[in-house]
Structures are given as C-alpha cells and as structure tokens.
C-alpha cells in the first residue's frame, strides 16, 4: 500500500512538474475582457464556487431505463472512487471543489482541487492532432475555441465510467458521451453553462451551470490516499448474496 501511495505521489509530482514546464515555456495568451466574437475572456485565475448559474437550481439528469437499470444493479464496492480514480466531467465540475484556469496561446489548462485532475483544452487552429479513434480516457479529449467572448469546450472520447454524470450516482457515461462547456466572465464572476449528451444513458441533454468567484489562496493538494479511500467500502452491505 505504501508503494501504491508513493507511486501516486510520484505521479502527482511528475504531473505538476510537467504542467509547470508547459506553462513556463508556452507563451501566455493576451487575454482581455470583451464581448466581440473574437474577444478572449480573461478566465485565468483560481476560482471558488458561488452557486448555481443565475441562482437557479440545476435540474437533475434524466436517465434512460437502461441507465436506471444499471444504477439499480451496481454494487457500491465497484465504485472506482474508492481507489482514487478521478471522477469524469461533468461530475468532477459538479462537486464542490475549486480549480485553476491557465490560458495559453494554443491551449487552456484547468487544474482541479478535486483529485488533482489536470485537463488540457486544445484550442482550434493551432494544428493539434485529433484524438486517436480508439482512445478513450477518464476526462476525454477536449477541444476549445473563443466564440462571442466565451470559451467553448467540446469533449468526447470518454472511457466508460459508472460515474458518468455524477460523483456518486451510478448512471454510466458511455463512450458516446459528449459534453459542451461555455465559460465567460461577468465582472469578477466566472460563469459556466454546460450540456452533456449521451444517447445510451440520457433521455435528454443534461444541462447545468455554476458561478465562481476569485479565490486568493492556492489550491489545496488532494494527494488521494488509496488506503484511506477504500476504507469506507467495507461498511457497505453488498446488494448480492455472499459467494460460497
């Protein structure tokens, strides 16, 4: 277990160093506020949640019967979160943790306090390669563009995950899941409007939005402890009879 924990820490340190190198050697974008179609909103900063977008409670996602059946059959011990596996978006964003946005000329990097996740959004028009057809990952492949003073991010190529749309509900995200995020600034507030789609798991597109305010403190490293993480699993009774 100590080995696993050390490996995890090494991976985090390596990731942090890699991110620092990328940030140090990539020219910073000349961000500015504006509403024109080509204006680049200033999103760089550390953000702390204020509440749902425009104060409206976010409506729940509506799973298909197939997805609801999966939820019913899913046994809690299978939850990948027990082994520090990061929750994919949109669940990652819905969870109440802060994050840091860094805008570069050809990409946007979002580092989340939750599970130390780092997403790279590849901006269009910079010759970034398309994702390999058969590669599916935890946070998918994100491409972005500035449009109408907003950062628009489209993410596909997600790996199948039982936490497809929420950190602790078992409506799975299929490999057909797609999420579109729109970020913009209104004064000191960062706003997000998003839509998630999945023809296998959702009856209709799942929309939600949040608002965040500037946070002055650095993010707190998550440094997920795998032993502590799985500890809780032992107290949940299985839905199924024990094996003989």
């Amino acid at each position, binding site marked *: 277990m100590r080995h696993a924990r050390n490996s995890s820490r090494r991976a985090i340190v390596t990731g942090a160093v890699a991110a620092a190198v990328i940030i140090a050697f990539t020219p910073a974008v000349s961000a500015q506020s504006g509403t024109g179609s080509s204006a680049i909103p200033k999103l760089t900063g550390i953000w702390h949640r204020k509440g749902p977008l425009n104060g409206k409670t*976010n409506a729940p996602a509506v799973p*298909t019967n197939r997805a*609801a059946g999966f939820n019913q059959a899913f046994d809690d011990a299978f939850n990948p979160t027990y082994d520090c596996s990061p929750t994919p978006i949109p669940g990652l964003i819905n969870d*109440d943790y*802060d994050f840091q946005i860094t805008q570069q000329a050809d990409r946007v990097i979002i580092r989340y306090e939750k599970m130390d996740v780092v997403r790279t959004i590849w901006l269009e028009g910079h010759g970034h390669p398309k994702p390999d057809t058969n590669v599916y990952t935890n946070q998918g492949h994100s491409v972005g563009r500035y449009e109408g003073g907003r950062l628009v991010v489209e993410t596909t190529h997600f790996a199948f995950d039982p936490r497809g749309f929420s950190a602790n*509900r078992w409506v799975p995200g299929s490999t057909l899941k797609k999420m579109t995020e729109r970020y913009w600034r209104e004064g000191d507030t960062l706003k997000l409007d998003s839509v998630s789609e999945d023809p296998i798991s959702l009856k209709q597109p799942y929309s939600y939005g949040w608002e965040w305010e500037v946070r002055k403190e650095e993010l707190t490293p998550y440094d997920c402890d795998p032993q502590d993480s799985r500890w809780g699993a032992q107290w949940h009774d299985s839905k199924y009879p024990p094996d003989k």
Partner: protein
Amino acid sequence: MRRSFRTLAVVAVALGLSAEAFAHHSTTYYSREQKDFVKIEGKVVKWEYRSPHSQLYVETTDKEGKAVTWRFESTPAAWLAREGITKDSIKFGDQVTVEGFPIPGQLFAWLGKITKADGTRLLPQRSSATPDWWKP
C-alpha cells in the same frame, strides 16, 4: 415486463442526479440517530489531515474504564481549510471533547465537532453525515 419498466421509471425519477456537493462516497453507514450520538473526552493520539477524508484519533476510556481509541472521519483537507481548520489546528496530546455519529458497535464515527481545552471550537463543514436534529 410492464411492471419492471414501471419500476425502472420510478428509479429514474428517484435517482435525481442533483448537482449538490458530494461526499467522496456515501456515508450512510454512520448512524444519524440521536440514541447513537457520541460525545467523548480524551487525548489526541493522531491527526491525519488529508484526502479523501481526514481522520482524528482520540484516546479515552470506555464505560468499564478500559483505554480505547476512537477514529473520527471528516471531510477532505481542502474542505477543512475553508473552515479555517489546518494541519496545525490539532496537535498530538491535545485534550479535546469530540462529538460524532458512529457506526453502531464500532469505535468509528463521523466527526461532528471538536472542542479543545481552551474552548476553541473546530466545526468542519456540515455534510450529509450530520443529521438535522444536531445543533452544534
């Protein structure tokens, strides 16, 4: 067949994938009933300020006078930091009174509140593991 579809439809509505703050995982194994509530006095023997859950270990004596160590689980370091609770807020040897919500029959509980000997109160962010009847 029709009945099973109806059942699934009910489940689908009940799922209510709400976008509220989540715990790392479900904490339903902690009792929220008033009869199980614990309040102990003791000495801090370990304070693990970490994620996904911080852990406070407090040595005390049980009803028979035997030394026992309670483990109180709490929220991740990032959430505790928002409440001003840091790694240095609690030290080995601190005399504390701790309130919590146990797993019945175990020396494990969800951390409600810590009161230090000097009267300082440490109150982690409320979570789904703390019941509405509890007024800290």
